[in-house]
Structures are given as structure tokens and as C-alpha cells.
């Protein structure tokens, strides 16, 4: 049986919550792929922990998006019954795990942003988003510390680890610009004090990156060409495969309770 995608009435607020929910779910899903396969048991624990935090954030944000939309969608319909073109996450978070260095660089770029972002969002005039921000900020601070420590260890570890982590930085750099982009709908939310302007975080984000990267004896790329598209559903080829796995049960056995 075929299950149709749900339709979402993407008002600026719904879309705003959905974009952050998709970021958290897709990155959490990627990290959960490591569970049972990490380089050491301590990292099976840590990566699962971070994945759990992110999936928890996603659930709160989806629930809020569904409430803001005011139809009969819920967290599971939003996660399991939208197709690639309806997903709104950053291209960065859907990139495959690759090796441990690539996973940690992806996490580092994202967490360095999320830490600043959620801290700023605690001042949102939207009480639900402010409450989600207060919880997510504490989690993101830990995620950033974990990732930063690994970037330093790998960068200043062996020749091989240095080369791998530098390659991951060079590869993922082009996906970081999207974090700071804003469209008209978001601009209105920023103006209303519901959202914050991510562009205002870029300077501090770069400082965090530079500090860690230089301690790790690594370098940031010079190129400034940035890939974009995730926020409007133009994704990389990787996301479709992730979704076909994530959604397989709901698509195969539609409308059942699990």
C-alpha cells in the first residue's frame, strides 16, 4: 500500500520550527548510526547520548510545529510522512558519517553554531521556543565541548588523524554558510522578536572555530563558496536514502499504532 505524504501548511512559524526540528532529527539519526560501531565504547556512549539529546529536541520542535499549524499532524507524521522535498534541514547535517573525523567535524561545525543559537533563542518572545532553547542550550554546550576536544585530539594526534580531520574540514566547510542564511519569512520572525538573526552569531562562531582549529594545528579553508538548498528542500542525494530507512515502517504499515 502506498502512503501519501502529509501536507504541511508552512506558515513562517511552522516552517521555522520545522527547519530546526529537521536539523535535530537528521543529525540525531546520523549519530545513532554509530551506535554499536564506534572506535571505542566510550564513544558509542557519547555519540548515542548526543543523538538522544537531538532526537529529544526534534520531538519538542515537531510537536510545537504541529501545534502552531493547528491541523491533525503530530511529531510522527511530520517525521515519517514527509518526503525529501518537504524536509527543511541544513545540508550539513545530512552528510554521511564518513570516518570518525568527518562525523566529529560535522558535529563541531553544527554544535559551535547551535550553542550560540540556542543561548540567544532563550530570549525569544515565543515562550515555547524560549523553553526549548533553555534545555537545548545546556545540551549543545556539552556537544560542543565533546566535539572540540576530539578536533584537538585528532588534529594534534598522529599524522594520519591530522590528515583525516583536515580533509573533513575541507570537505564540510562549504555546508556551513547555510546556517547563517535568512529568508523573508524568517526576517519577519526576527523582526517580531520570535527568532534571532543567525548572521549576528557568525563572528563568534568563527572565533570558536579558529580557537579550536589553531590549537588542533589545523587550518580553515580559504574558499568561501557555500552550498545551499536544504532549507527549501533541495537536498543532497544522501537524504533520500536516510529517509527511506527512517520511514520504512510507517510507509510499509500505514496508520498503525506502535
Amino acid at each position: 500500500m502506498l502512503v501519501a505524504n502529509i501536507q504541511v501548511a508552512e506558515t513562517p512559524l511552522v516552517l521555522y520550527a520545522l527547519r530546526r526540528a529537521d536539523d535535530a532529527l537528521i543529525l540525531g539519526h546520523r549519530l545513532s548510526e554509530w551506535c554499536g560501531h564506534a572506535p571505542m565504547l566510550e564513544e558509542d556512549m557519547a555519540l548515542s547520548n548526543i543523538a538522544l539529546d537531538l532526537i529529544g529536541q526534534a520531538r519538542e520542535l515537531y510537536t510545537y510545529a504541529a501545534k502552531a499549524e493547528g491541523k491533525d499532524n503530530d511529531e510522527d507524521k511530520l517525521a515519517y510522512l514527509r518526503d525529501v522535498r518537504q524536509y527543511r534541514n541544513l545540508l550539513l547535517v545530512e552528510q554521511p558519517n564518513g570516518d570518525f573525523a568527518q562525523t566529529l567535524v560535522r558535529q563541531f561545525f553544527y554544535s559551535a553554531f547551535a550553542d550560540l543559537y540556542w543561548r540567544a533563542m532563550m530570549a525569544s518572545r515565543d515562550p515555547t521556543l524560549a523553553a526549548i532553547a533553555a534545555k537545548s542550550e545546556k545540551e549543545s554546550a556539552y556537544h560542543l565541548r565533546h566535539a572540540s576536544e576530539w578536533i584537538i585530539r585528532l588534529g594534534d594526534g598522529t599524522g594520519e588523524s591530522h590528515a583525516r580531520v583536515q580533509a573533513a574540514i575541507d570537505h564540510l566547510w562549504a555546508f556551513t554558510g547555510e546556517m547563517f542564511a535568512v529568508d523573508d519569512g524568517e526576517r519577519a520572525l526576527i523582526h517580531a522578536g520570535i527568532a534571532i538573526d543567525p548572521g549576528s552569531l557568525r563572528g563568534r562562531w568563527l572565533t570558536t572555530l579558529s580557537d579550536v582549529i589553531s590549537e588542533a594545528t589545523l587550518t580553515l579553508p580559504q574558499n568561501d563558496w557555500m552550498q545551499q538548498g536544504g532549507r527549501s528542500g533541495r537536498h543532497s542525494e544522501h537524504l533520500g536514502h536516510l529517509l527511506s530507512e527512517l520511514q520504512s515502517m510507517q510507509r510499509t504499515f500505514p496508520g498503525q499504532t506502535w
Partner: protein
Amino acid sequence: MYTQALNTAETDDRGLEEAGRAAQFQARIDAEERIEPNDWMPAAYRKTLTRQISQHAHSEIVGMLPEGNWITRAPTLRRKAALLAKVQDECGHGLYLYAAAETLGTSREELVDAMLAGKAKYSSIFNYPTLTWADIGTIGWLVDGAAIMNQIPLCRCSYGPYARAMIRVCKEESFHQRQGYEIMLTLCRGSDEQKAMAQDALNRWWWPVLMMFGPPDATSQHSDTSTKWKIKRFSNDELRQKFVDATVPQAQYLGLAIPDPGMTQDAEGHWRYSEIDWTEFKQVLAGNGPCNRDRLAARRRSHDEGAWVREAAASYAAKRAQRQTAQAAE
């Protein structure tokens, strides 16, 4: 050993001393005292416990694989989070148990290497595949249920670090067991398709789960000394019977049939199960289960592919220590 003839007298003295210590050790065990890492213990006690605790740790780690197989496909976000947390708990148990085993003098690296080399065993139940979502419910309900049955008595094991580890592990396992049963309950109250999925999973897991308690008492190798040392307090068959008696009413409540048409209830209320196919057990133990090769290959792959990360961490730690020493000298 080869110089035995040259120092007979010394050996005799040592033998006497050893015998005295062994008697003292046994007296402590009989008095229900806990043996701690720095206490004297017979070499065989140390060896038995190292084997048992490390096998237990390996089982937790290999056990992450069949359930981990469903993390990315869990049917709802709530189930996904619960399953991920459960598999993470198992990893925690593994770490905790390796630490308990290390108190007996063998490092985690050595223990893990033995497992990866195929020299150390882990629970055979994890050599069966998880084919549907109902397998995740069944593992929680039955596999964790059987593990609890085995592990509750271990909370009183004579070796302190193991007993203490078991107290924590049992608490988490009983949570997992309820979670698994709740998955089964949801399936059994769901569509015909879901109920059939639950029954199929029970059919596949029932007999392997009964085998988890080990060979019948008449043929078990380790029980005698383990009982004397209060590592083991109930026999394999006693625990198996307890498990069956506890599980049959649970299956009835779910409306599922235990795949043993010959099962009967005796006058004392015990559910008497049919003969277990020990040939299958021996085959799986010998490495011929459906997933033995896959499980070991997966563990080896993670270990090999993670080698550069562990080397980097070690190299960085060494550099840092060196820098700190240099700084302190300034």
C-alpha cells in the same frame, strides 16, 4: 615446574600455606562475606570469574548489534529514542563489567582481543537475527527477562565488584524488560498483521531463549565449583523452570501461543516444556549460528576502523603529558 625436584621442601611449605589460605577463603565465602580485588583468592576462582565477567561484558557489547539493527528503523520517534537509550545502557553495562573484570588483573584490551580472536565466548542468543520490529519487543521481554532471571542471584555473588555491578545492571534490565513487554502488548492489541508479527517473533526466539540458561544440569561443566564459591546459586535447570513459569502467563495475557504444543502444567503449577534441541545449541556455540560470523565481523570492523582514532587519542595524551612535564620543569 621443571625444577620441581630441586626445591621439594619449599613447595611443601608453600603448599601448606596455600591450603590454609584456601580454607580461610572458603570460610569467608561460607560466611557470606564479599571477596574484594585486593583479597587473596585461589587462582581458579580468579580465572573462573574473569571468564564469566568478561563473557558477560562481551555479551552486552555484541548484544548491541541485533537491537542496534533497528535504531534507524524504529517506527516512531518515541520508540527510536527508547531503543537508542536501551542499546546505550547495554554499552554502559559492558563498560561497567569490563571494569569489574579488570579488578581481577586482566586489561580490557586483552579481554576484547580474546573476543575478537574468537577465543572468548558471548551469549549465543545474539547470534540470531532481528528480522522485524516485533523482535525488538521479544528481545526486551524474553532475552532481558531471561538475563534478569540469571543475574538477580548474581547480585549476591561472592565477588564484590561483580555483585555490585549486577545490582545496577539488573535495575536497568528490568526497565528494558517492561519496555519490551509493552512493545509486545501494543503489537498484540494492534492489527492482525501486527499480532502475526508478534507471534512469529515469539516462535523464532522461544527455544533459543530457553537455551540461554545453559546446558541441562546433568551435563554442565562449571556448576560444581561455582556453587561452592557462591558465584552461582541456582542451577541452569532451576532458573530455566523459574523463567518458563513466569513467562507462560505473560504470553497468555498477550494472547500469544508458546511454540511448544507439548507443554503441560503439572500438579504444582510448573509449566513442563518439551525436550530442548541441544544440537542447535551446540552448533551455535561452535560458531554455526545464523549470525555468528556477521557479529564477529562487525565487532572486528569497528575495532580495526577505529584503530587510528585510538592511536591519535593515545598520541595526543602522550604529547600533552610531555608538554605539562616540560612546563613544570621551567
